[in-house]
């Protein structure tokens, strides 16, 4: 890991309007010295991937509390692959049942943080798992 600032995109895919968690994480990452871009609500997978590419981020974190994670998270990772992006660390968070986690990991969402996760754990995870 170099000394340059870690760039993170925090995104809200789908129609879910609950972004307390996304914003708290974004702010904690910023306080930890990362550069954080937040997409705001209701982003399509296409918009999220375009933002990730354009902002040249190292990390993409997505949050869904509506239950649409199995549809939308894999769509984002598939689009990233299509664009030839393979060095962005992708993680997800929200109300996600444990039994869905293996499926999501199989689709390139490398970590899933569920309710009760400390922001320090997320920060440490990012610092230890960067791909570039």
């Amino acid at each position, binding site marked *: 890991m170099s000394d340059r600032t870690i760039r993170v995109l925090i995104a809200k895919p*789908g*129609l*879910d*309007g*609950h*972004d*307390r968690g996304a*914003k*708290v994480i*974004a*702010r*904690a990452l*910023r306080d930890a010295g990362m550069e*954080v871009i*937040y*997409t*705001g*609500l*209701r982003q*399509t997978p296409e918009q999220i991937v375009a933002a990730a590419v354009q902002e040249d981020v190292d990390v993409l974190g997505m949050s869904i509390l*509506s*239950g*649409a994670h*199995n*549809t*939308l998270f894999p769509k984002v990772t598939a689009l990233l692959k299509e664009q030839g992006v393979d060095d962005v660390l992708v993680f997800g968070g929200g*109300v996600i*049942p*444990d*039994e869905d986690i293996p499926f999501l990991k199989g689709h390139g969402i490398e970590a899933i943080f*569920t*309710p*009760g996760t*400390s*922001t*320090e754990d997320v920060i440490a995870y990012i610092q230890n798992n960067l791909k570039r």
Partner: protein
Amino acid sequence: MADLREQFAAWSAKVQKGLEKHKERKEVFLSGGGAEVKRLYTPEDIAGIDYLTDIGFPGQYPYTRGVQTTMYRGRLWTMRQYAGFATAEESNKRYKFLIEQGSKGLSVAFDLPTQIGYDSDHHLSEGEVGKVGVAIDSLKDMETLFDGIPLDKVSTSMTINAPAAVLLAMYIAVAEKQGVTPDQLRGTIQNDILKEYIARGTYIFPPSPSMRLITNVFEYCSKEVPQWNTISISGYHIREAGSSAVQEVAFTLANGIAYVEAAIAAGLEVDDFAPRLSFFFNSHNDLLEEVAKFRAARKLWAEIMRDRFGAKNPKSQALKFHTQTAGCTLTAQQPDNNIVRVTIQTLAAVMGGTQSLHTNSRDEALALPTEESVRIALRTQQIVAYESGVADTVDPLAGSYYVESLTAQIIEGAKAYIERIDQLGGAPKAIERGYIQQEIMDSAYHYQKSIESKERIVVGVNQFQIEEEPPKGLLRVDPAVEVMQKSKIAELKAQRDSQKVAELLKALREACNSDENLMPYILEAVRAYATLGEICQVMRDEFGEYVAAAML
């Protein structure tokens, strides 16, 4: 009082000495809402409060002690469980189950596409159909949803905001088919767009046409659906987004002020619509602070309505509210502990004088609740109602030095916020500038930090953890629901008189560009089985769409 002061000082000095040996558990004690809590409250803390003018009697101005004279001695609060998922058929079954279990009112949860005005076959609906509520695409689905439920016998609350006028029209149309006239209908639509911009996110149109739709509903219902609560001004989601108790009261009432102002500006008389305004608050963990919060909200609203808007009808001054226990306090860890949290929150809502209550289920931090969890949640209310004794006297905590002092403190804090919002030009302007969102975000962040620093203990999360097996038997929505809804729409469009639908949508489009009330046009379109998505698309075309600024 001089005597008291003297003895209190002597007592404090003694305590101070003792503290040198045995420190208190914390340097500073903070309430759930982040306010500093003193060691002891005495008559001195309520010396500025006058019983007759500040507290008074239940059912009378300023309504601090409650909006009805006998409160739960007359009739218990309405136990109303928010429910809805998958298809109208599935949800209809859950409603019948709830009614069998003793639930007295229905509360409909819609899925996100419905809440944002997209049909199930819209590309943005992918993955969301039937997930957080029931999918309603047309009057057909609504007929199924209430099949076998007599709409003149139940009261129904619908959590619907941007397209509230459309869903209300569907409800009226279903009632017509049952032979029930609109004047017999009782219930509530949330219809509170301002908190969507602030905290909940299911907006469609920009503020100005949204406010028009809301005042159109006020006007229409005051004539045609007189028993209907035309708005539920919601602090619930503001609190869920992380606000403090004071902020919840302040921002909710500031939104309330904006709706009253909009309706008056549209030419309505305050006492014609204000009796049908209702509120919706959160019941969080800090029992005594929450009770004080409900009391504070009632008194402050009564003052605002009487003094700011000159409302004369007592019903315009009395703040009636629904409560839901705080979803954000539920933990995914040791989920059975949530039953206890919900019990505390239930006590707060009841001792705070709520008119109706939803109790959350223990598994909601994990998934949608199962039937068993919902039953426990409802039983929690029934135990508080029938076994705890707290419902047997009105406003049982009045006169507590702490609760009265807290009530006054919350009123004062909320007034200061409302003044600040007035200076910014009112709630819509304050939202546009991001002021309200920023204040909430700051509170949410501090709350999270206080958990991580263990200043706040959350049992099972940052203390008293155990190794747990992943929970089993969670409710899942079948992905086939999306496919089914899509085919239902295709079938409907093949069967209905689409020529007529097109004409009615054209009439609605023209009405959007006039200053006519839109409700009759929406109702006509709904009756002809225009879909929710078609109706909202017409309004999207004419009104435009709101785009929120992404703020951290």
